[in-house]
Structures are given as C-alpha cells and as structure tokens.
C-alpha cells in the first residue's frame, strides 16, 4: 500500500455547501415580482387540490331557473346559461388547467427529451431522421397542429392532452438535442467511454443530469404557454366542452353574453392571464437562479 500523502493536503479548506443553496434562493427571490408569481402559483395549486371544499356549488350541474344571474351575494360571479355557478366553475377550472398543464408537459417533455437525447448523442442518420421530423412538426403553428389532431381524435380531455403534447414536444427535442451536442464534447464523456461505460449509462447518468437545469427552466415557462393553448383549444370548441369546467370553454360560453354579463368571460380570461403570467415570472426567476454562475450545483 502506498504511504499516505502529507496531511497538509487532506484537510484543505473546501467551500461549505450550504451557501450554494442560500445563494440559489437569494438570486431566485431577488426580484419581488418572482415572489409574487410564486404566491400566485401557490394559490393555484391549493385551489386545484381543495376545489371540492372551496367551491360553493356543484360546477357541473346548474339550477336552470337561476340561469344568467348577475353577480350577487348568492352567486359571487353570477351564473351561466345553464345556471351553473361561475365561481365554482372557475375553481374547478384551476384543477383542469393544472391537470392539463402538468400531464401534457410531462408527456411532451419526456418524449421530447428522450428523442433529443438520442438524436444528439448518436448523430448521423438517427439524428437526421428524428430532427427532420421534429422540424416538420414545428413548421405547424401549434394551435393548428393541436386542432388537426383533436379533430381526428375527437374532443375530450385525453385527446386535448395528446394533441398538445405532440405539438409541444418538438420544442423540447430541439433544445435537448442542442444541449446533448454540446455536452457530448466534454472530456468526462470521453472518460466514461474510456472506462467502458455503455451508451445508455453515458446518456442517462452523464448527459441527462447536466441538461436538467436548462430543461427545468424551459418546462416551467412552457407550462404557462400550455395553459394558454388549452384555453385556446377549448375556446375554439375543441378540447374540453361544457359541462367540463375549463377556463377556455368558459370564455367561449360567456362570449355570447358579453354585453349582458361580461363577468362570465372576463373572470376565466383574467384567471388565464394571471396564471400564465405567474408561470413566466417563476420561469424567469429560475433561469436567473440556475445560470452558469452556479454551474455544478443542484
């Protein structure tokens, strides 16, 4: 056995780790407005989870005699043509928004990341085939693509998710492809090969974790876009239709009665706007906090 090296080296001062986390939070919350976004999202999540307890009425069935009521102490935001309470529908709409948002993003990100990773890592024909398909998909305006798929599959929440996921995944694939291409050039990837690591191991244990930070930012920002897209689809009559409680559908519903009871459209519209804005703020904050200054952390 080799003699140990002089101890002066062993107990070298190595920077304490705690400060890195603190620095992350400090940068993240640097702008008060990011905190504002975080609070909004917090409210959104809580509303979605506790919708059953928060909503005063059943959002799906209405009292026909109470149709198109103006906002009152009984119905805070009034009712729609079917007599359904707008407030309750708004609350349950949060659940739909988050559900669609997270599930769609999950599916799109998973598929996009895998495709981008494979394309970027292997290069050559594989990359060409995959990325050209992605380019083709991206050539369609997102709403149009989602429309196309929805009209083939029909309405309903699952199909909305599929349609939106297909529309969103090329974006993830593109970014991941770019990240993989640049990460692949690092010496530690070569080191992995030199010690006998399989491609699978290299991709999953070395490339993927290093691509995580930028992907997290992308995902967060896309969540907002997604909710907007879902709202758009519902507004156009594809996607979620009443009695399903979705903000976009609600805007569509209330469209006809704009002069009569504008709250029907404005309330969900405002909700969409605030939530999307909140996601963008948080995404912004995350991007600042995760920037290369803190490379090597998390």
């Amino acid at each position, binding site marked *: 056995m*080799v*003699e*140990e090296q002089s101890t002066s080296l062993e107990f070298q001062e190595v920077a304490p780790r705690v400060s890195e986390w603190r620095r992350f939070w400090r940068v993240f919350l640097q702008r008060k407005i990011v905190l504002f976004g975080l609070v909004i999202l917090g409210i959104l999540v809580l509303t979605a989870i506790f919708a059953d307890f928060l909503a005063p009425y059943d959002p799906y069935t209405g009292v026909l005699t109470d149709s198109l009521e103006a906002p009152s102490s009984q119905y805070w935001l009034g009712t729609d043509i079917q007599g359904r309470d707008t407030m309750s529908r708004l609350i349950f709409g949060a659940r739909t928004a988050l559900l669609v948002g997270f599930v769609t993003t999950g599916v799109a990100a998973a598929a996009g990341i895998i495709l981008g990773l494979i394309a970027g890592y292997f290069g050559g024909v594989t990359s060409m085939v995959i990325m050209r398909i992605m380019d083709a998909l991206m050539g369609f305006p997102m709403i149009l693509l989602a429309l196309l798929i929805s009209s083939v599959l029909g309405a309903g929440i699952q199909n909305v998710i599929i349609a939106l996921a297909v529309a969103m995944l090329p974006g993830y694939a593109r970014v991941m492809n770019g990240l993989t291409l640049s990460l692949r050039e690092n010496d530690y990837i070569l*080191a992995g090969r030199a*010690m*006998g690591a399989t491609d699978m191991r290299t991709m999953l*244990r070395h490339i993927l974790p290093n691509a995580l930070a930028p992907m997290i930012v992308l995902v967060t920002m896309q969540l907002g876009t997604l909710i907007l897209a879902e709202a758009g689809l519902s507004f156009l009559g594809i996607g979620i239709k009443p009695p399903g409680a979705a903000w976009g559908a609600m805007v569509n519903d209330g469209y006809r009665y704009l002069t009569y009871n504008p709250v029907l459209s404005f309330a969900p519209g405002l909700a969409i706007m605030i939530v999307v804005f909140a996601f963008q703020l948080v995404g912004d904050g995350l991007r600042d906090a995760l920037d290369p200054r803190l490379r090597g952390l998390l």
Partner: protein
Amino acid sequence: MNQKSNKAILDIQDLQMYFPVMRGLLRKKVADVKAVDGVSFQLIRDETLGLVGESGCGKTTIGRCVLGLYKPTGGRILFEGADIASFTEKKLREIRRNMALIFQDPYSSLDPRQSAGSIVGEPLKIHNMTPTKGEYNDRVEELFRVVGLDPSMTDRFPHEFSGGQRQRIGVARALACDPDLIVCDEPISALDVSIQAQIINLLEQLQDSAKELSYLFIAHDLSVVRHISDRVAVMYLGRIVEICKARVLYENPLHPYTRALLSAVPIADPFVEETRERIILKGEVPSPLNPPPGCSFHPRCFMAVGECSEAIPPLRDIGEDHQVACIRV
C-alpha cells in the same frame, strides 16, 4: 534491441489513423488528415514511455487509439498480446478494465453533477469489481487516500476542489480497477508550476508501489517527459523520428528535429543557457493535410540533402535501444 514481445504490455505495429475531410452537401471525402502515419513501438511492462512532440504530431491520437476510442485505419495494437484494433465495442469494454486514461483538463474531465466519490467509483460499478456496498465504499476511500485526498470528501462536488485536487480525483478514477496501463494525456499542463511537481511525484509513487503499472506519458513539455520517462519517443507529423532512453535523449540526440526541439526548451539556469547550442528552425510545422514528400521534416532541416525528399526514412536501430528515422545519421 527489440524486447521480447511477452515483456511488452503494448505492441503497436504500423499504426495508421487517418481522419477523412468531408466537404460539400453530400459530405464527400476530399482528403485525409494523416494524424498517425505508420507508427510502431512497444511499451514494456512497468515502464514509462514518454510520447513527445508538437501540435499535429499525432501523440494524442495514438493515446486515444490505444484505449480503443478511435478505430485505427490500419495497423495493429497488441495489448497483452491481443489485437484490440479489431475488437468490437463489447470486447473493448471488457479489456477497458485493464487500462485507464488521465486527462489534461481537470475542469472538463469530471462530471460537474457527480460527487467526487461517485466519479472515482464509477469504473468499479461498470466492471462490477465490488459486489457489496461496503466493499465499494472501502475501495473508494482507499483510492482517495492513495492519491492524497481526504476520504471524508467523497460526497463533495468537483467545483469544490482546486485544479490540482481535481487532477488527483482523475488519477484516483484511473486507478480504480487496478489497471496495468495508464495513458496520461498531458496530465499536468493545465496546472500551476508548483502543483505540477505534486502530481508528477504522485504518479511516480503510484508506479513504484504498484505490482505492475505502465505509463504512456503524452506531453509536449520535454523537461517533464525527460524526468518521468524511462524511454522517450519523439514524434513529428504523425511519425516517430527517434526513440531512446530518456538520459540518452538529452545526452546524445541524433535526429535533427530532436536536437532542435531540445535546444528550443529553455533550462532554468542562466549559466547553462549561455553555453548551450541554439538551433532555431525556419518555417513552421506543416499541415498534416499536406505533408512534405519523403521525410516530412526535410524542408526545415538543417542537415537535409536531396535524397531526403525521395523516400520516408525508416525507423532503424542504431545501437543500444536507440532508433532513429533519418538517412543522415
């Protein structure tokens, strides 16, 4: 004289590595970069062979070929008697347990998201060397100690260590599976001068205490190579121009390029410098895309004659373990 091949852990025979240059939309090959153009040498067990030369000479490419990271265009690479140039990726993975690579850049050679311990232990996991968790942890800590790092630092991340410490992590990783051959690719050139000596000593120490460990030491710094190597091979534009014992290289260099190279390296002693031979070459290293005909050094050579451009001079024995590729010597 050539050593018997069973004493050689590595036997390179006429290695060629050409990289095609693609042009155009359809990516047609227009030329070859002849990075390595017919190189032969042996690495004896337990010795350190220095591979030295300037940019474009092919030394790094040879290192990568030896590890199976590139598939050679021609020639044989006999590692422990078997020609790895013809191995499949699967077979290569098996023998990779027995060889390792230390990189130049202590910053990009470690995955920033992996803890130091995990980096060092990864070869163990890949080759299933330590079946139980206990054995794994013990081995990782032992490796840390051997390279002079505090074993309680295994959960720290690369950016928390200094450049020299990161290079020690790289060395520990290379040692993980107890390889018989380590290719050191410029392992100290990115470090401060005062730290370089620490790593040089560490590498020497490891070799002394290991049962069997050979180094292929690739570097451009002749002083370092002279210090750590038993034998040195000098390369120019993809070919070896001279191989001899390290001491002989300084005392009796024969190839004109070797002599020029040596005279170009300043020695930290003004009294010695005053009396040294100073050979200043004209011109620059030609592009490997378009090497001069015959001896690739002849356009810059102060000893060149007409015949030098006619044929590539073979690497021939001229006495005690000394080979030179020059018709004028």
